[in-house]
């Protein structure tokens, strides 16, 4: 009797694992070029980040919306690694029939190429951009101990100012690096593995300042534990109305992160249209709008070709700025 219980437990265990693993292998016969019945099977949504990050959350929210609008299932598959390049490579290689779609980050195409060697850089030309999703702003914050309350205070600092970043080749690094270079302030970049460790170091006064995503910093800003100095969008961020943009403070620095839906190059137009329409319908729902609100995301629900133009423009602009100020993102330490 006891023995059979053990066996049962073991079998149940294997079954659970097998079920969990199935999420990753359902790319049979998805899509199909006949648009009327898209999707005809499960559609994989690889995301180049671990579960729980903004990219993952947004992918899951969109996946839910697509399921509601189009029927079928859109399993989100976390393919963490190489800053999102792994997931991107998977999408680029996938069949161009709508069976693999992915929400991707702008920084992978506009900023990462500045930090890695040319053959490792991911190009937007391997994808068709279907639809813009939302913008995630960066904010420059100072620790309480640093005594900074505005960018002007940097002039009073003695010695180098340290700034924490969320990693090499990220928008946070670029935003900070540009700010200090344009402002001609001597500074040292301290890269951390993501926003949480950078925020921890800032709260503990280990670094003087840091560039973070608004969502990561906002609770501690509201609680007065850290001081916001600047945001980097084209206009102020709705969630932090009192924080001026870098432009307002006379620094020509504009860096934003945004996300958009991509499909492999050559995916039939009718499939792309079906996805775009379903996404627009999702954007209208109050659940989705509440989601943006709690995650401090600004909607950027523009058509795919505008996103692509924006990507190309940003990429060129960043490359020019980096060259002008002699910044080497890949050589922070």
């Amino acid at each position, binding site marked *: 009797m006891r023995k059979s219980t*053990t066996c049962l437990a073991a079998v149940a265990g*294997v079954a659970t694992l097998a079920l969990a693993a199935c999420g990753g292998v359902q790319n049979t016969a998805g899509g199909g070029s006949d648009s009327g019945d898209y999707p005809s099977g499960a559609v994989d949504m690889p995301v180049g980040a671990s579960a*729980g990050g903004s990219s993952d*959350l947004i992918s*899951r929210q969109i996946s839910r919306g697509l399921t509601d609008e189009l029927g079928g299932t859109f399993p989100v598959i976390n393919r963490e690694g190489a800053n999102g390049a792994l997931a991107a490579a998977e999408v680029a290689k996938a069949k161009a029939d709508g069976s693999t779609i992915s929400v991707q980050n702008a920084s992978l195409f506009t900023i990462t190429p500045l930090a890695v060697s040319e053959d490792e850089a991911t190009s937007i030309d391997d994808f068709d951009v279907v639809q813009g999703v939302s913008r995630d702003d960066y904010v420059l914050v100072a620790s309480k101990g640093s005594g900074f309350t505005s960018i002007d205070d940097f002039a009073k600092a003695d010695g180098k100012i340290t700034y924490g970043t969320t990693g090499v080749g990220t928008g946070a690094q670029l935003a900070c690096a540009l700010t200090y270079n344009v402002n001609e302030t001597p500074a040292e970049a301290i890269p951390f593995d993501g926003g949480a460790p950078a925020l921890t170091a800032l709260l503990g006064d*280990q*670094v003087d300042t840091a560039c973070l995503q608004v969502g990561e910093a906002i609770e*501690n800003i509201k609680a007065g534990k850290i001081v916001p100095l600047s945001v980097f969008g084209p206009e102020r961020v709705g969630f932090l109305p009192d924080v001026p943009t870098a432009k307002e403070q006379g620094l020509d620095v504009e860096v934003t992160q945004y996300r958009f839906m991509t499909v492999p190059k050559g995916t039939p137009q009718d499939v792309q249209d079906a996805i775009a329409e379903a996404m627009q319908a999702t954007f209208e729902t109050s659940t989705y709008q509440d989601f943006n609100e709690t995650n401090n995301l600004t909607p950027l629900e523009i058509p795919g070709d505008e996103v692509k133009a924006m990507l190309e423009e940003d990429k060129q602009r960043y490359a020019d700025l980096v060259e002008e100020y002699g910044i080497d993102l*890949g050589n922070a330490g």
Partner: protein
Amino acid sequence: MDWNAFLDGFGVVTEPNNLLYCLIGVLIGMLIGVLPGLGPTATMAILLPIAYNASDPVSAIIMLAGIYYGAQYGGTITSVLLRIPGEASSVVTVFDGFALAKQGKAGTALGIAAIGSFVGATVSIIGLTFLGPIVAGYALDFGPPEYATLALLGVFMVASIGNGNTVKALIAAAVGLLLATVGSDSFTSANRYTFDTLQLQGGIDFVVVAMGLFGVGEILYNLEERHGKVHVPAAIANIWPSRKDLKEASPAIGRGSVIGFFLGVLPGGGAVMASLAAYATEKRVAKDKSRFGRGAIEGVAGPESANNAAATSSFIPLLTIGIPANASMAMLFTALLVVGVTPGPSLIDDNPELFWGVINSMYIGNLILLILSIPLVGVFVKILRVRPAILAPITALITILGVYTINNSVFDIFVMITFGIIGYLMKKTGFEPGPLVLAFVLGSLMESNFRRSMLIFDGDPTGFLTRPISGTILAFLLMVLLYPLVKLLFRRRTPATTPDTENHDQEAGLR
């Protein structure tokens, strides 16, 4: 502290549906903890939609938290029975736990681990209840220099683990440190030992290494050992620890709990350091050090109490300052966002019901886990009676599926098999995989924090000595390293004045 809010929290937990969610959470947690590979983080991600749909957000969070600390109980079982540690913090449990299982004392090991886990977690929850915000402040004093020195101390502690051969342990640790360098350098994004594959750019996952070296290595070794022999089922002498075992283990449980609580608060690597430190402490205070690695009950009790205490105290940074200390806490952070609560310093004031509801649910959840563990120990121990011809393929299948689920990557499976072969060769040549795996985990922690520190110090290494915490850690490290040398000198000088018997004592003390 607000007593009314605290007591109201118990009111929240004892609502029948919250109790049910708590029960479901810890049960799922315990089960997935037993399955190597499928960790609490992945499970929480799969079950996150519950948070979207739950009628009461507090119930959903209670359940997800239950999965996390429930998994800590389950993780011990595979470490002890099959020699597969599911996470870095249960690697040290393997040494004495698996040795005990081989001696037919698996029940003792699992029983003590369950009690230790319960005590550790409970001590930690009490700490969280009364000292939470204060301890969170102290955790912030730990910057890159402190982590770097702590990791360095950890690497030296690794050498003390296993059964004896320090030189071989150090060699294995050195290989572990080298393996930690694989992947894209997080400071310059230069590729190191990636052989132009994208898959290696993110480095090698701990679970892949651990399951290969321990799990697959053990399977291969057993196949060779038992080939042609008639299988004799392992004797199962007892299911429940004796009074004597309990008496031996209780001081270790106490020390482990306190160590775990304090080190667990540190985001990133806290739990690993806690279990390592607890093991090293037990070995140091033990009268007969040679028992360690050969089935010392303290070697299970200390680290297990410590890693559960650490798992519990890792809630502190999340709930009091809004910083997730590990991947599972990041999932819980996400779940809180989903239910419309942004974790941060104001959580305790804005949502006292949620704050105290979740904390108090852990008192009850851990009690449920202890009660569940008692009959389950008896069931799981029976696994050892399964013939290797059946057990080995099932274990192999579980490890392969488990590794696949981490990144949905077939590449990882091959990496694991490679490590399995290395693990087999290591076992044949008398190397312990433990020091390698632990040094691997600590290596990247040490490297990146050392480089961060040097950037912060602007290239001046004396900064490590002038900062109070890192300076203390370094002084401690120096003491531990020099202690044997000083003793040696002392011993050489003393023979003329001291009788021989004392010499023997000191010699024993050295080991």
